[in-house]
């Protein structure tokens, strides 16, 4: 891991040890507690990926079991030329980018408010994290049926009530999910992820060195100047952390797509995880599903490279204490 080239050496130096053990024996005695976790992780998470890699080179449809043979890279040719998969890649990027950006912005706004004292701050904080704690599938069903539903959903119901308040007979009957499928998905996910961002950014704000803020105030800096030149640079690594962790989770979104839109209408909201699921359990094309899986893994590695760098910078700071 090149990012860790400058990791603190201090902690790696074995502290003065007592008891005359051979160096090799001591090394293994140190390694021993680590082994169960390491072996378990390798077996359960790494081996399946090797299997995915192998399957991705096979022509393999479960409905035609006799026609299973090695096809080299043709599944990959399919993955990169298939219209559905290409739109799934685009949908995944649109979904992830919109959800992460919007929830970071909203989370930042809320964090800035909650960083100040006001009446009922503790209660507000508790209420605000609730969306993140509701089971994701339950949240998706809630948005689909209780909020977006054209006939009895809360959104149209409220619109209707407002229209009647102003004397109109009936409000519009908007079918939110079929009219705005992607925004409907994005809003439900932003609702869920904003509290997550808020918690991380609030922790960042509260870790600000108080004396620097005090000094800025004494020197007559305006609130905006303080925010621009002190708070924002300080918050940067927290924002980065929120973005990378959010991206990792949102890229994998399956529950919301499965529940709210089923990838539709057509394939307008089909993201990669859902498309792979369809390829596997609806088209039964194992080889193609595996190849698409490998492509997703490669995409994730790109995000993860950034992610690891961000986490490493926070980690280095922490480890140097």
């Amino acid at each position, binding site marked *: 891991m090149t990012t860790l080239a400058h990791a603190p050496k201090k902690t790696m130096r074995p502290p003065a040890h007592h008891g005359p053990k051979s160096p090799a024996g001591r090394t293994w005695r140190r390694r021993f507690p680590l082994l169960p976790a390491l072996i378990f992780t390798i077996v359960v998470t790494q081996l399946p990926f090797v299997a995915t890699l192998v399957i991705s080179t096979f022509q393999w449809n479960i409905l035609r079991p006799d026609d299973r043979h090695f096809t080299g890279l043709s599944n990959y040719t399919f993955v990169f030329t298939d219209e559905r998969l290409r739109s799934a890649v685009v949908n995944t990027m649109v979904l992830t980018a919109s959800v992460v950006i919007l929830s970071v912005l909203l989370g930042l706004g809320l964090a800035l408010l909650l960083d100040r004292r006001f009446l009922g701050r503790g209660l507000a904080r508790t209420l*605000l994290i609730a969306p993140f704690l509701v089971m994701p599938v339950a949240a998706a069903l809630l948005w689909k049926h209780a909020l977006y539903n054209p006939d009895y959903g809360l959104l149209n119901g409220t619109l209707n009530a407002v229209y009647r308040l102003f004397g109109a007979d009936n409000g519009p009957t908007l079918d939110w999910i079929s009219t705005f499928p992607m925004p409907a998905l994005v809003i439900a996910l932003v609702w869920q992820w904003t509290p997550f961002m808020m918690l991380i950014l609030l922790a960042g704000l509260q870790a600000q060195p108080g*004396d620097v803020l005090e000094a800025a105030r004494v020197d007559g800096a305006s609130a905006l100047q303080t925010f621009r030149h002190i708070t924002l640079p300080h918050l940067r690594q927290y924002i980065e952390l929120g973005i990378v962790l959010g991206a990792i989770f949102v890229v994998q979104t399956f529950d919301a797509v499965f529940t709210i839109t089923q990838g539709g209408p057509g394939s307008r909201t089909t993201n990669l995880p859902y498309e792979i699921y369809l390829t596997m359990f609806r088209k039964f094309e194992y080889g193609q599903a595996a190849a698409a899986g490998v492509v997703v893994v490669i995409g994730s590695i790109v995000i*993860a490279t950034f992610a690891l760098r961000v986490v490493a910078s926070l980690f280095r700071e922490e480890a140097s204490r």
Partner: protein
Amino acid sequence: MSAHAATPVPFVQRLRRRRQDLDPGQAPRLSPLWTFVAWLATLAFFAPVAWMVLTAFHQEADAATNPPSLLAPLTLDQFSLLLERDITPYLLNSAMASVFSTLLVLALAVPAAYALSIKPVEKWTDVMFFFLSTKFLPLIAALLPIYMIVKDIGMLDNIWTLVLLYTAMNLPIAVWMMRSFLAEVPKEILEAAEVDGAGLPTVLLRVVAPVAMPGLAATSLICFIFSWNEFMFAVNLTATQASTAPVFLVGFITNEGLFLARLCAAATLVSLPVLIAGFAAQDKLVRGLSLGAVK
């Protein structure tokens, strides 16, 4: 703690006392206008949850009106209906999968975290980042081989399959969190205890455990939440015997008749454990979600 010699600049900043530690009461106050904005935003975010809980206590007919009937009479009918429709086995499956996987995670992660902090192995940072990198691999790409293996060995629709998968899913998070807690065990005291000839059990019990206990609680909470909420493996690898609460939720929606109140009751019921746990441990939540990086 053990801060010597050349420390980077960020550390110096961290040495300064945090504003909150300095004087918790002295954060600047919001003006009335901004207080109003803060509460408006809070209520907007909380409204869907409030609506879910309120609808759960309504009759189906009242839940499906337009405009919505906020003041309809309250009832517990939906919850008793759920129990009649046997939500209990699903809740038990969820509880089993979450609790057992959390225990297994702790059994694996605590010794590993010990070997990554208190008595660190050589190249321990590389090991840490290996664990973290497994978390970045999308679960969906592992679903196919896992499905095939599980099917081959006859473990489909088995709660222990979920236990193992959830353990693997949460282990990197747990290792990172536990390490960040164990790293706070004061080295000086550890060394002093060893010089005094204290055995390993004494050191673990007297020095490590007091610091590790809150960490253990926080880690269990996070692992529990993630396992309880997991859907993708649960829906694809279970059928009738081992289905968990989220699978129940998507399964009982029908096209016939009204179901909104019952759905809200079910959604409330299955979210309740995590809501309670999360509210109770708000302060631990952020540390867990950021893998121990944010205190």
